[in-house]
């Protein structure tokens, strides 16, 4: 791999142990991926922040980099932690607060912005064709597909290394000729109201190439987020070309195959049935709610609330605790459990539920595996309506 003189100095340790180790990781991963050079990144987003996800070994890894001089060289944001930073949620278990604080202190001291969110584009929307090094699978696919930026699915440690060095390897989606959609996916079901999260899970399971998806240009922010995050959970997609949404000069289309996704194919991806007597958790906010979605939830609560037939939880970026303080207050008054800077996928829960009702395919994918609960995907309005008025009303 070609390295500039500056990069060679970094690799040889002239900028300290942490920068050398970080660059070594990037060079080794890049070498295995066929990269011939490195590329400067404008924004790193670090995943692997929740203590319950990374554990003590992850904490040691981070601690080592910090103690030996690892500091951010580029703008860097971080993923959610395992605790509710408002301290007001009755559902998220804050038992690991002390360990999470250790992780957070390290990351903040390294110069990372403690946004604790999986939607870093809320803080800094990337530019078209801008090179990024993002972890967090749902954010990666959103950056590539909606903003036309360029990032691979960096594992947490590579995103961390990119922050410390300012570089990542130039391979995969950093190269224009790799951003080619080869499978056309037509989805008439979406216009008939099938939740996009179910479609995303189906695509993740069945399509390996970069898809060119038609029939989704009228989806709102919530629908696009849910579709993309689900694909990145059940599959390994980092880019989907969404007709009418993905910026035109950021991809090529060379269709070799076409798939029409019928309603029936999506049925099994809607999840489990709800039985009477089930303890229901309505959940919206995976990925974290965009402000537009937050306002939509408020509207729905005014229309259907308060939640009497189950609990309703939303999860939002840490910064909303200040920026949208009055809105979060209203939601709490209306009986909503608002968790800040976290989500149930990266945390433990204090309360037991039988079923999670959510708009998110990603939440369905992980909640079943991590918390062993049943899960069902419906639209955002149905989530709120069901926990407020009952499943059959």
């Amino acid at each position, binding site marked *: 791999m070609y390295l500039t003189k500056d990069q060679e100095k970094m690799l040889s340790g002239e900028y300290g142990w942490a920068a050398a180790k970080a660059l070594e990781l990037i060079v*080794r*991963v890049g070498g295995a*991926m066929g990269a011939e050079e490195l590329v400067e990144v404008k924004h790193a987003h670090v995943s692997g922040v929740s203590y319950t996800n*990374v554990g003590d070994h992850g904490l040691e890894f981070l601690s080592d980099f910090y103690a030996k001089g690892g500091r951010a060289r580029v703008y860097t944001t971080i993923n959610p932690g395992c605790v509710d930073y408002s301290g007001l949620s009755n559902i998220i278990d804050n038992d690991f607060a002390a360990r999470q604080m250790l992780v957070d202190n390290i990351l903040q001291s390294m110069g990372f912005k403690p946004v604790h969110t999986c939607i870093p584009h809320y803080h800094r929307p990337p530019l078209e064709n801008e090179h990024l090094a993002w972890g967090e699978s749902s954010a990666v696919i959103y950056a590539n597909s909606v903003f036309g930026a360029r990032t691979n*699915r960096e594992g947490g440690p590579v995103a961390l290394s990119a922050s410390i060095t300012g570089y990542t390897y130039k391979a*995969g989606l950093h190269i224009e000729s790799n951003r080619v959609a080869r499978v056309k996916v037509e989805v008439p079901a979406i216009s008939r109201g099938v939740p996009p999260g179910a479609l995303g899970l189906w695509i993740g399971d069945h399509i390996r190439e970069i898809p060119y998806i038609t029939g989704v240009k009228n989806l709102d922010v919530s629908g696009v987020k849910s579709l993309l995050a689900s694909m990145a*959970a*059940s599959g*390994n997609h980092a880019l989907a070309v969404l007709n009418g949404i993905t910026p035109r000069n950021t991809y090529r289309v060379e269709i070799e195959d076409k798939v029409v996704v019928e309603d029936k194919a999506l049925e099994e991806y809607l999840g489990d049935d709800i039985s009477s007597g089930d303890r229901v958790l309505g959940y919206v906010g995976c990925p974290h709610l965009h402000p537009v979605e937050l306002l939509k939830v408020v509207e729905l609560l005014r229309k259907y609330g308060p939640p009497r037939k189950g609990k309703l939880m939303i999860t939002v970026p840490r910064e909303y605790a200040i920026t949208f303080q009055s809105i979060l207050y209203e939601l709490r008054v209306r009986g909503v459990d608002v968790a800040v800077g976290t989500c149930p996928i990266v945390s433990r829960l204090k309360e037991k539920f039988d079923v999670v009702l959510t708009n998110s395919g990603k939440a369905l994918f992980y909640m079943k*595996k991590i918390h062993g609960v049943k899960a069902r995907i419906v639209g955002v309005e149905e989530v709120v309506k069901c926990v407020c008025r009952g499943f059959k009303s």
Partner: protein
Amino acid sequence: MCVGGLRAKLRPVIPGVCKGELLIVDRYISFFGEVDPVTGCLKNTTDLCVGGKVLVFRGSRGSTVAPYILYALRKNSKAPTCMLVKEVEPMLVAGCVLGEIPLYVVLNYHEVVEACRNMCAEVEGDELRVHKCT
């Protein structure tokens, strides 16, 4: 039947020592959520444990926390000896670098999966030699 003698072509991604009993899990795996980093077993199973095995699977999917899980598997002495996959993505490569796990792409993946259950294997250069376990 894969009764000794089957040879599969490999593309080394992270070369290294790769020898032992095959564990074939013919699907994509999200290491976060689907593999317990303490036991090394696939969630809700007791017989599908990756520790010390030549893990054969389609590739990784899901969360970008996976490298930390592979790192934890190594620290807990539950990492696979090596991995043989159908396809690689950057996140899996990073996890294998961090967890010091050799990684190879099997060019005739399906042939190996269909014929080589309950067998042992050894990598030599860019070739996989499958044989009965002794």
